[in-house]
């Protein structure tokens, strides 16, 4: 079989970039390794350029094992954007708290590669490979601060739990394979339509949900995420919360909406329940948190719940909602975590209490944190509102209870976001010296702010793109 390389240029370029950073890092002197960050940034931007440029290309290669359509391209771009922001916005944080640029940056790149491979996966094996490439890279990244026991604990927890989850996922895959006799999504879908099914398939389905739900940290498979988010370096947390989550959602859609549509009646309600559970648990437990990273972790569990709503719809509008939301979610989360990291750089603390008077010490940071959190809460004039609108639109007839729950829960989330706002804005700082933010951080913050607000006021273009992408998913 002939391989159409034009379809996988992005992946190839990314792989080259990763290796290049690695080898380059080995040959240049330690002192010069600072530059690797810039190289990674540059490379990623180029790769993003390639990805955007190759938007028109669609098709399948490797005999259907690798699917390239607007849907996958969209999520690839999302992942790459996340990677770029991580590399750019956290440079000082990495320099100060992580070190070891060489492995760090190359691993970031490989994690990204894993994501986009997984996004394009057309069969179980590619799925598994991409997933594991991503996961293993992330384990490395999570445990990167090997001098910090918290980071190590997070790493080992992530390792073991991820191992179990992928074991479960694989078992599920094997069962589905057993039930349908194929590992290609397309053929799976076909054979289900042709009537293959039964208990085997159901159990496989459940295990798939568990395995992928773990990756998107959907309750009740979310329990790893707070610990890992808290323990991991903030940059990694940010990447974990955005890139990995978005990619996992892409594959979740690919597997369920794409290939298991035949047995919808079995999983739609299940996903709906999981979504509701994620909203509830995420938002409720976030309330009493005192560590901002941990709070954001729980809120990202809730966010997973919202995004899953789009899968419940199992329709084009639902998929479109998911895409739109994950795009804006990347910027909101990145903005928030960038602030967290930048503040940590100055005051060496992630405790919310220590954010007192931030509005006066670093107005921009405080504002961005406010805006990003509110966007996650879905307050209008911010992108999150539009995103939620699209998501809930998809399910409003038939799932009113879920819509109401989702909206009420997002208002609850405002409660704990506002507690941070309270500390930042009301209190007067212990020491009022202004916090000087680096240019890279400032720019990242401005980007996050700009995109969040702009898409909140004028979401037209993005929703058009998401629409076409969703269309391509259903009619290749």
């Amino acid at each position, binding site marked *: 079989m002939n391989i159409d390389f034009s379809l996988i240029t992005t992946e190839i370029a990314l792989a080259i970039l990763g290796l290049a950073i690695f080898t380059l890092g080995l040959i240049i002197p330690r002192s010069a390794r600072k530059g690797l960050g810039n190289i990674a940034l540059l490379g990623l931007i180029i790769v993003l350029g390639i990805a955007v440029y190759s938007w028109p290309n669609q098709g399948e290669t490797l005999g259907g094992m690798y699917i390239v359509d607007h849907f996958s391209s969209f999520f690839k771009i999302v992942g790459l954007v996340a990677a770029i922001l991580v590399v750019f916005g956290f440079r000082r944080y990495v320099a100060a708290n992580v070190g070891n640029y060489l492995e760090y940056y190359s691993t970031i790149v490989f994690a990204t590669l894993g994501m986009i491979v997984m996004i394009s996966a057309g069969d179980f094996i590619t799925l598994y490979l991409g997933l594991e490439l991503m996961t293993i890279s992330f384990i490395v990244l999570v445990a990167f601060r090997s001098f910090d026991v918290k980071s190590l604990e997070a790493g080992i927890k992530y390792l073991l739990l991820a191992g179990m989850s992928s074991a479960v996922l694989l078992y599920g895959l094997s069962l589905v394979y057993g039930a349908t006799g194929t590992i290609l999504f397309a053929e799976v879908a076909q054979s289900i339509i042709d009537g293959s099914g039964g208990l085997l398939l159901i159990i496989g389905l459940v295990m798939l949900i568990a395995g992928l739900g773990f990756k998107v940290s959907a309750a009740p498979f979310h329990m790893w995420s707070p610990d890992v988010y808290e323990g991991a370096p903030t940059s990694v947390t940010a990447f974990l919360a955005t890139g990995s989550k978005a990619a996992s959602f892409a594959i979740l859609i690919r597997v369920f909406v794409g290939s298991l549509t035949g047995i919808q009646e079995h999983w739609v309600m299940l996903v709906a329940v999981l979504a509701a559970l994620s909203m509830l648990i995420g938002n409720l437990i976030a309330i009493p948190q005192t560590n901002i990273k941990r709070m954001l972790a729980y809120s990202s569990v809730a966010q997973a719940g919202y995004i899953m709503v789009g899968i419940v719809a199992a329709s084009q509008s639902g998929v479109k909602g998911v895409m739109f939301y994950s795009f804006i979610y990347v910027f909101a989360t990145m903005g928030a975590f960038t602030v967290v990291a930048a503040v940590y750089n100055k005051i060496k603390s992630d405790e919310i209490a220590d954010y007192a008077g931030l509005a006066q010490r670093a107005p921009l940071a405080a504002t961005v944190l406010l805006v990003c959190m509110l966007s996650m809460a879905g307050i209008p004039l911010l992108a999150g509102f539009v995103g939620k609108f699209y998501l809930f639109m998809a399910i409003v007839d038939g799932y009113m209870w879920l*819509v109401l729950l989702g909206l009420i829960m997002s*208002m609850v989330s405002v409660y704990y976001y506002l507690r941070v706002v309270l500390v930042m804005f009301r209190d007067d700082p212990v020491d009022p010296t202004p916090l000087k933010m680096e240019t890279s951080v400032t720019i990242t913050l401005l980007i996050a702010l700009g995109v969040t607000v702009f898409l909140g006021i004028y979401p037209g273009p993005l929703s058009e793109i998401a629409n076409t992408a969703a269309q391509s998913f259903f009619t290749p």
Partner: protein
Amino acid sequence: MTFPILTTTLLAPILAALIIVFLPKENDKLCKSVAAVGTGIALALSLYVYFGYDQSVGGLQWVDFGQPVPWIKDLGVTWYMAVDGLSLPMLLLTNLIGFTAVFASWNVTHRAKELMILLLVLIAGVMGTFIAQDLFIFLLFYEIVVIPIYIMVVIWGSSKRVTKEYAGMKLTIYLLMGSAFLLAGVIALFVNSVNITGIADMSFEGLAQVAFPEQLQIYLFALLLIGFGSLLSMWPFHSWSPDGYAGAPTAVSMIHAGILKKIGGYGLIRLAIVVLPLGARFWAPYMAVLGVIGVAYAAMGALAQKDLKYVVGYSSVSHMGYVLLGLASLGIIGINGAVAAMFAHGVMAALFFSMIGFIYERTHTRWIPDMGGLAHYTPKLAVGFMMAGMASLGLPGLITFIPEFTIFVETFKVFGLLAVIGIAGIIITALYVLRAAANTLFGPARPEFSHIKDLKGPEMVPLIVLGTVLVVGGILPSLLFDMIDSGVAPLLAHINDVLQIGGR
């Protein structure tokens, strides 16, 4: 392609806010002046629009850019800024109160810069809801105001019976909860309209043309009623209001009681009643009952208060009960009255809160028993207080009487005895207002207040501007009513058509 005067009006405060961002923190007088100019421009523009509106033609006028600008295609959202006789009074009210609110907080020196920025954002947000003729844009502005308010309350608020943190959080979360229901309703409304007509159109006009089945209307109207009702402090969704106002700084109390609540009533007309007439017809009796309960209950509550702000807080709940009653009548007279009452109460409440704010600044207390005889030291302030109070008890010759009377005319016809209970509210109102006034302003002069100064300079602005509106509106009600009627009449005509055809 006409000049987008409404969008300009909307942007004036925003622009001022942006300017203030780059002003030095220390120079708070400058910040305030810029804010005053910004709101002043907005006020001037809205006055120009108000009196430039052609009532004989009616309908939506001053459409920005000449026609709706496509905004979000797949949702059929358009940037559709226009005004009719329903929006204009609200727009004018917003800018009146916004302008005066700046001066009401003239004496604030603690972090004045931030206060002004938030205030301007707030004003712009509220303005947007009234001029947007597109449901989605309306929603965008609908909630944005909540967050600035929270921040303002927790920074500049005051803790009395409840802490300002509690008050702010209650205000915010309560209203957001309400808006959750509203949002659910709106989403369902939109999706169903698409399912029925096949085309996505979010403009109020477009939605009004959709023929929703009666059951759906009833079910959606309930959601919208909860949403808008809680903002209108409809009983029993009112308990945020007194605490919220008590905790909030003067400017926020003014804007919140003056305008924000009115968004609830405005939305009920513009969206709920006009788009879902059958649902409205089903729920109208319940609305009326809730309205009457609100009137009597809140009036009684106000009677038991010792804190000035609580008195006004409860009284505003009670007045909104009248508005709800008027809306529930679903008749042209009643709805005209309700809209006019919203305008009138806005002016009155704003004046009341600004005066109370000044009193609090001077005496550092709002506890009525601790006051008395203030009229001896601050006659001007007393005048303002009395005007607001008299307006609040619906004294003829002030702007509040005719609207209330108009509401009574319709509701008395439609609901009979129920309305009588509501009308009886005017007695209780008189009682608590007169008590508050008497115990605050009159009686023997207290030596401990001998040092306090009367209103002067910028502090006079709220009294002058709002007081003038109170009197002029009272003497020439047609200024207000002709405008409102020109806006409400066509809507009512539409509703009646639907009720004829769709009804039974």
